[in-house]
């Protein structure tokens, strides 16, 4: 009865060091843990506290759950010190997740920046899964990071590169000696390389606030209607239940009514995120 705020302890099965301050943690997926791409969970690190992380694995990954975490504050620093065999708690899933019904039958444009690829990865894996791939049209993925060393999910990116049913473009703000790919800020690169007429496309944008802001601007210029631009908001959250109050924007609680919103919805909300 008192389980609403009570976490479930799970052992860490594996840790992948994505960059020097981002790690992906793999946990066994409990059977009862049903979620949609774009949802998040509260992760409890015993002795350190709780923090919300989007689930970077896909619901089609039946065996495991993954969280990709950047080391920033008290909880994430404690989490980064943990390894396989250590226990952490999770509760969730929380939030609305991506509007899959709305995407069905459309072409999908994914634009991700930095660690913002985590929730997109969940959706990309879902969309590309053999049992779902036919429900969606073309897939175009643009991913940007600050430098080549900040690129996350390299294994996924390599695998995506191999596939013929999608277009993948990776860009960095600042290249280095070994970098042969695109160099440039995400919004600009997007305008350069995405040459399709926007009708029939839905775009999904996720990344740091400043990138989201300029990418949305670019998408609008390219002719996307606000309802077809989908993004996720980042707010500080504690409870995940729409009660603790800190993620409140206008009449919405981001942890419950979000974190996925369309640009159309954002336009109706006070700009306070």
């Amino acid at each position: 009865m008192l389980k609403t705020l009570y976490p479930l302890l799970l052992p860490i099965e594996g840790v992948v060091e994505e960059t020097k301050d981002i790690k992906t943690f793999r946990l066994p997926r409990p059977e009862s843990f049903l979620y949609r791409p774009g949802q998040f969970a509260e992760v409890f690190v015993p002795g350190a506290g709780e923090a919300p992380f989007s689930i970077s694995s896909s619901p089609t990954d039946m065996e495991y759950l993954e969280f990709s975490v950047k080391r920033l504050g008290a909880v994430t620093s404690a989490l980064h010190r943990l390894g396989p065999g250590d226990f952490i708690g999770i509760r969730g899933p929380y939030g609305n997740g991506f509007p899959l019904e709305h995407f069905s039958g459309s072409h999908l444009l994914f634009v991700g920046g930095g660690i913002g690829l985590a929730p997109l990865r969940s959706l990309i894996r879902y969309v590309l899964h053999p049992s779902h791939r036919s429900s969606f049209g073309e897939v175009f993925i643009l991913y940007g990071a600050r430098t080549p060393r900040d690129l996350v999910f390299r294994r996924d990116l390599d695998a995506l590169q191999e596939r013929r049913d999608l277009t993948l473009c990776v860009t960095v703000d600042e290249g280095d000696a070994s970098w042969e790919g695109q160099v440039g800020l995400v919004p600009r690169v997007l305008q350069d390389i995405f040459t399709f007429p926007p009708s029939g496309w839905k775009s999904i944008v996720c990344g740091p606030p400043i990138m989201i802001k300029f990418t949305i601007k670019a998408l609008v210029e390219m002719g996307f209607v606000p309802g077809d631009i989908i993004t996720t908001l980042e707010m500080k959250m504690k409870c995940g239940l729409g009660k603790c109050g800190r993620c409140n924007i206008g009449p919405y609680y981001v942890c419950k009514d979000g974190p996925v919103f369309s640009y159309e919805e954002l336009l109706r909300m006070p700009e306070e995120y």
Partner: protein
Amino acid sequence: MLSFDRGMVVSWEAFVRWLGHVRPFVTPLVRERLRVIPRDVLTPVTFKTLLFPPREHLYHYSFRERRWELCLEESSPEPAFLLLAPCEARALLDVLDRVFLEEPPTDAYYRRRRERLTFAVVGCTFFETTCFCTRVGGHPLLHRAEDLFLLPLSSGIYLEGFERKVIEGRPLALQDREETERIAASLESQAPSPFPSSLPEKLYGEFESREWESIAWPCLNCGACTFFCPTCFCFDLAVDGKLRGTMVRTWDSCMFPKFTLHASSHNPRGRKEQRVRQRVLHKFSYFPLRMGAFGCVGCGRCLKVCPVGWSIQEAVERMMCCAQDSLPASSPY
């Protein structure tokens, strides 16, 4: 019009005896109205401390034999009987109950305390300078038909909904009836008029207003108003202890800069006027738009405890003026 047919009048002596027997929790607002209540049964902050305490243990964790163990805090709270002013009863029923019980998911910690709480409503015979319940849909005599209701009169105390075996009373005499009518009439003549029903939308439109800055200027951004507010429900979850400890739920306040501070150091409400705006709009715009009722019950406690005498009512009025001014010229107003 309120009717006083269902109740009885009890002598002050009998009432005080009864008080000594039940020892109810009493809020400071009620004690202002019922001075016979002894000081030692005061809940000095708000009644909210009984339902949603500032220190609630959610669960305990410990590292034992090389693994973590979790254990729920299963204590059962003691039953409590409360005397509430009508505005506070509204805060309980229309705000806290709705947030923690009706909006899914139900908060089990709140529920187990709520189930053991009973209350009676003590009607107000006057408005304090800080009162504005009638502006937000309340009334000094408001109570539901099923509530226990008390009203101090000169010859004794009027009780409604109490069983006669609990406390002995007499039917209302003519003079009591006249007094209740006098009270109702005098309250009617002093009652501040309600805010317009369009207030939530109007304020929503004033989000960008420059006025917030000057409204917020004196505010110190302490949490006195939010902690003494009977409707404020924001909370924090914070662990206490490393290898053995407790997850504690505690009150938090939208007035505190750290409330919305991201780990990345980005803060959507980093400035004082943004936080003050959040407090005003949440109570008078966001909450009503979401839940259909004001998030403020007009008890005026925030003003009483504010170190700089900042009035939320005044802030709303000032923003209403702005909203009027900013209407387009073609507007029929």
